[in-house]
């Protein structure tokens, strides 16, 4: 093929310009699967490789991306009291969501891939595609209004200290996307907790809460011209939020008033289908479950971790129901699944194979532990309304220990058989 030969001619010399060579190698392997053949072992290899695996995981998240982008707009307009129906003004909601989502996505990937490229060049190996999934996850777990500079610092911190410092793809102990979020959580808590962070585009500084398009107002104006010409609804002038507006997520409501407080504002169907404030990707449970099923069918994510996490969460919630110590504990156990980011954490965060236990029995224990610890943090800890981020990072620290004991027992059993 003439085209590929032209590309091969562009290859920079490895010794003279190693950084450019790394970049060239990354782009070449992005476009083409290399012509290397198997030597010295098996002669035929499975068609799956890490690139395809990561691409499939990213694909599984795309429904969440779509809905999350739409939901940013939906929550914004709900706060203003206009376009309240789900199917009203979809174009406005999607565009508004994109003005929030695209900068986050771009910043995440530029910063993260920049750090990855640098380390690949320094260590002399190929650019590894582990970051594709991390880069797809981070936008989905951030609040929509997060300042981009905070996001950049968080991503750089996570990739540098949680991944590259340990040796790169396959060597990290903690889930990289969660480390990014936990950095924002502890360093800039105002951006990621409380009632004011989860509905985008609102300015809380003056007495009345008004819309605030930030730096992307020009996009609205541009598209308004397009839509006026097509005859569709436009963004219109800036608005004021309705009376009685609260940006509280269902979890914040449950923490203060139990299930009654939640069910006053949201019905279980709304909680399930996802038209509620929250992190960008976590709200729509059916779409996440579709993504999870896709990964299970393709044998790319472990069903054991998912099932055991559900069991752990359910059991702990049932125990809390029996205890009934405070209002939060009386939320019926089934509704704990409806609120918060349980399903997202289960489908995409807990099942990260590098940070989870390696043995099958270990996966059951690991998932169960996440379920239990997550519920404890959510219900019993007044400082954190949601517990999955901390629970997963906690169990990530224990995953090697779980494997250690399982392997020790396997080894003892073998050596004692003499």
């Amino acid at each position, binding site marked *: 093929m003439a085209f*590929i030969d032209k590309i091969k001619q562009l290859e920079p010399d490895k010794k003279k310009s190693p950084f450019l060579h790394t970049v060239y190698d990354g782009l070449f*392997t992005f*476009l*083409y*699967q*290399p*012509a*290397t*053949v*198997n030597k*010295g*072992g*098996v*002669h*035929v*290899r*499975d*068609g*799956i*490789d*890490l*690139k*395809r*695996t990561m*691409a*499939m995981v990213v694909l599984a998240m795309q429904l969440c991306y779509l809905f999350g982008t739409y939901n940013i707009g939906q929550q914004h307009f709900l706060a203003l009291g206009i376009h309240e129906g789900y199917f009203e003004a979809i174009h406005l909601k999607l565009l508004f969501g994109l003005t929030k989502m695209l900068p986050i996505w771009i910043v995440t990937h530029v910063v993260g891939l920049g750090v990855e490229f640098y380390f690949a060049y320094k260590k002399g190996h*190929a650019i*590894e595609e*582990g970051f594709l999934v991390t880069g797809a996850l981070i936008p989905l777990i951030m609040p929509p209004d997060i300042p981009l500079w905070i996001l950049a610092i968080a991503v750089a911190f996570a990739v540098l200290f949680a991944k590259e410092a340990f*040796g*790169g*793809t*396959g060597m990290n102990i903690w889930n990289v996307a969660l480390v990014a979020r936990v950095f924002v959580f502890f360093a800039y808590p105002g951006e990621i907790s409380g009632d004011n962070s989860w509905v985008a585009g609102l300015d809380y500084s003056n007495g009345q809460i008004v819309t605030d398009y930030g730096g992307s107002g020009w996009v609205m104006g541009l598209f308004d011209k397009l839509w006026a010409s097509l005859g569709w609804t436009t963004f219109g002038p800036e608005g004021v939020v309705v009376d009685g507006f609260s940006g509280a997520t269902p979890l914040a409501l449950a923490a203060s008033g139990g299930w009654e407080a939640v069910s006053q504002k949201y019905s279980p169907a709304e909680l399930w289908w996802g038209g509620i404030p929250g992190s960008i990707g976590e709200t729509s449970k059916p779409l996440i479950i579709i993504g999870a099923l896709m990964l299970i069918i*393709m*044998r*790319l994510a*472990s069903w054991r971790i998912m099932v055991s996490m559900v*069991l752990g969460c359910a*059991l702990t919630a*049932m125990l809390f*129901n*029996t205890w*009934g110590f405070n209002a939060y504990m009386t939320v019926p156990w089934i509704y704990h699944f409806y609120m918060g980011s349980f399903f997202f954490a289960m489908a995409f965060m807990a099942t990260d*194979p*590098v940070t*989870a*236990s*390696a*043995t*099958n029995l270990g*996966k059951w224990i690991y998932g169960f532990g996440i379920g239990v610890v997550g519920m404890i943090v959510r219900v019993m800890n007044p400082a954190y309304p949601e517990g999955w981020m901390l629970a997963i990072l906690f169990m990530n620290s224990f995953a090697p220990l779980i*494997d250690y004991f399982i*392997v020790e027992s*396997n*080894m*003892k059993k*073998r*050596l004692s*058989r*003499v």
Partner: protein
Amino acid sequence: MNKTNYRVVFPTLLVILFFETSYAQTTSDTNSILSRLILVAIIVLLFGFILLIAEKLLQIQAMRSGEKDISAYSIFPQIRKWFHKKPNAYVQDAPIHYLKEGYDLPLNGEPEQQILETTVSRYAVNATDFRGLPPIPKVVVTPGQEVLAGDVLFFDKNNPQVVIVAPVSGEVIEVNRGEKRAISTVVLLADKSIRYKSFLPFDLGTATREQIVNYMCEGGVWPMIIERPFGIIANTHQVPKNIFISCFDSAPLAPDLNFVVRGKATEFQKGLDVLNKLTGGKVHLGLDATGSQPPSEVFTSAFGVEKHWFAGKHPAGNVGIQIHHIDSIKKGQRVWTLGVQEVISIGALFLHQRHEADRTLCIGGSSFLTTGYIQTYIGASLADLTTNRVKENSRLISGDVFSGLQETSQGYSHYFNDQISAIPEGNHETFFGWALPRIMPSVSGAFPNKLLGDIKFDADTNTNGEPRAFVMTGQYEAMLPMDIYPQLLMKAIITKDIDRMEGLGIQELAEEDIALCEFACTSKQPLQSILRQGLNMIQTES
């Protein structure tokens, strides 16, 4: 408590809790219902425990009376058995080892059951096929010398009794030496009809073990025995714990051993009789319980041996897997393994007093124009076997596509191989190879293979991706039906932790067992070579 009991107890607990929370905040009237439910649950659990104890006592009694198959004595129904397919009639109620893990790679070019008439004029014996032979074995022939089938070619300097003999009669054409003058191959130009060296008659009934070993060494069949762990030439002085023979080959494009052993029943039985005298334990045969036809009469009517049935996908036919399920290799033990055609050669030596190195090779693979079986001898020249039969730009493999050795057309069939595979070379780039949906063999579900039903692949030799660190977990365990954690074992070998390697069971593995894990590896790691490094480390240590 075993796995099934966990699966009963845990949901029961869950059900109790569920009911409890439903009634947790209700009035005291319904509390009595709750307490009655808990009472019922406790009684059921107690009853279950009593049944468990009774079952264990029954099994202890069965063990004391010398019964082998303990799991047949069980009060609880064997729920697993309900989900298995009904075993084939020819198994006749013998216990079957069901192996869940594994993968059958469906390749195009299955060898047809036909004999292809081929004349092979050159044969070679390669010293590197024998592990445990020092790098410079002593060669006793020179180019130009005439040899008979059974004449010594080279021997082990450390143990001169162990000799490698000529498979055919003819003229020695080349004695190739590799690095540092180590012997690599001795090439023979065969006579039109084989002339054999005659050995003295041997009475198996009255012979001692030492006499049998000497006769086998003299007859050149000793190197046909492979000793595990490490896969080396068997030690002439030590008695192995058991001898294992796998009577079916589950590798892709492998020969049908039932077809290969037709008419060789007496030689096979004689070989088994010889092996029975050499082992400290038993001779075990591994038979295929999944074939549509019963295994050959040669196997099923063999006596003096223990037969074991296996049902599962590849690598169920690997002798290493069968050893693990019959009587696994413990630390410090040795076992011997042989192929079916090697047993026949041993039997032929004792029956006909000559070294018969006949092999029925099968040729298969999508790069062969015709496939089938060729009756030839050990070490046949690939050029003669594959003239006018192979397509362009293909890879010739002596062995199967997982653990065979790559050969050029100037190469020779290796000593222990009974198949030649040819598959296309994948030395071309593929545009967006990792993103576009393709038709490729894969263990994962990320390809649209299931939608196409029973499809066979023209797999090529491309790596299909670049090597990466270990990322996915559970992949290797799903390909290896043994109680071993392969990924952790690989990591132990890479970090050179010998105690951990031994504890994780490296002695039970050979390259062919881990080859399917290497096929399925997402990170394209060279598992077979890592395993060999680990085995070498342990061998040098002991």
